[in-house]
């Protein structure tokens, strides 16, 4: 085969893999500062009720405590039953995972890694290069981050302030979606600019949904809501 043929095949392969990602429409008026909107700054602590929905329609309720440090790029997570029994406590700093305590199934490294990576996706600004900023077909602002491992994260900011994260694998297929919604009624406080509901949808061989309802949100430094 001639070198030109290789080049053509390579270009076609790249093009075909790129087409799986949604098109971003250029808009020079957009500001990149909005790309950070979903991710807390400083050090915050959230308490959520967590409903885990598993394949087959099975559900389970837990309580999650998450302390996020944007500067340290760390998350500290505790999972417990609604009655207060601690099931798991772990930390993630950069890429280092530390299990502080766990029982039963929660002791597995697979669980810890999966949980902490999910939390990192939701709460920490991506450690990746911002390559594109534009609008979706629906008019929402989208910021596209590309990781070294070829995975992609789209941060989508809706007109009403709600936001979504869509993570694509190296094959450009979506594998995780985070949907954040703010209260639909009442005036949103600047101090309490935290979505009251976050839903994580994981697709793939083991698919599950994590529905997070905000119970309390606290600024760790000042200890004021």
């Amino acid at each position, binding site marked *: 085969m001639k070198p030109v043929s290789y080049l053509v095949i390579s270009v076609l392969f790249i093009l075909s893999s790129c087409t799986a990602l949604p098109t971003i429409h250029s808009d020079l008026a957009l500001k990149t500062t909005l790309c950070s909107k979903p991710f807390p700054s400083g050090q915050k*602590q959230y*308490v959520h*009720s967590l*409903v*885990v929905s*598993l394949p087959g329609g*099975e*559900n*389970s*309720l837990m*309580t999650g*405590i998450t*302390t996020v440090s944007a500067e340290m790029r760390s998350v*500290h997570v*505790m999972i*417990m*039953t*609604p*009655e*207060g*029994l*601690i*099931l798991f*406590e772990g930390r993630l700093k950069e890429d280092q995972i530390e299990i502080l305590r766990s*029982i*039963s*199934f929660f002791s*597995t490294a*697979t*669980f810890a890694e*999966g*949980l902490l990576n999910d939390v990192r996706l939701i709460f920490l600004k991506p450690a990746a290069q911002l390559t594109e900023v534009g609008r979706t077909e629906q008019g929402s602002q989208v910021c596209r981050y590309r990781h070294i491992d070829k995975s992609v994260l789209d941060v989508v900011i809706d007109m009403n302030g709600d936001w979504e994260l869509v993570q694509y694998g190296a094959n450009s297929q979506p594998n995780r979606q985070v949907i954040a919604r703010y209260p639909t009624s009442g005036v949103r406080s600047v101090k309490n600019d935290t979505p009251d509901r976050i839903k994580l949808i*994981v697709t793939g061989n*083991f698919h*599950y949904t994590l*529905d997070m*309802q905000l*119970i*309390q949100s*606290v600024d*760790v430094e000042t*200890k004021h809501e």
Partner: protein
Amino acid sequence: MNRFHFRVKPVGLCLLVLLFLASVVGADSIWAESNPLMGIRKKAEHIKSLHAEFIQQKQLKILVRPLISKGHFVFKAPSSIRWEYTSPVRSVIVLHRGQVSRFFTKDGLMVKDVAADLQVMQIVMQNITRWLSGRFDENPGFSVTVKENRILLKPSEQISGIIKRIELLLSKGSGMIASITIFEDRDNYTKIEFKMLEINGPIPDSVFEEI
């Protein structure tokens, strides 16, 4: 992630239930007894039903602010229990006719929790029977110490990694339950305070059948 199995969760909840029942049966003049545990056992024979409101305060080293939950507890002899949280999220555990189920609110509907574990439930039922009879000292899972109006329970090695000790505080005046505190370690504990306790009031079976 993998399929979830919560073997310990029902145990943790039921410890609260059992401790509550145990302390309720200690009402009135158990302190006059030379053996307080014997006094509790005697009183237990007269409990047919009870209802109480509760406030649960979870204190954790990691928590900036304590986590407060509220709800109510219902018991009907011989072995029906409803332990319900009304806030911040509604969830209910019901033990009725030998079956234990847990439910919670999802999108406005009550759905069943898959965390339920039949083996643990069976243990729970056995313990309830034992504790309802005031037989603290017959459970090899705990050693019991009575100090004035405090009942201290230390778990066996089997669950000592999860719970270090449990303190039941009874009112010195009435002997009624005031609070239960479960210490997981030095910095982390759960305190449940009871109020509006009603003993032997009418409680229909539907309380345990309708979620």
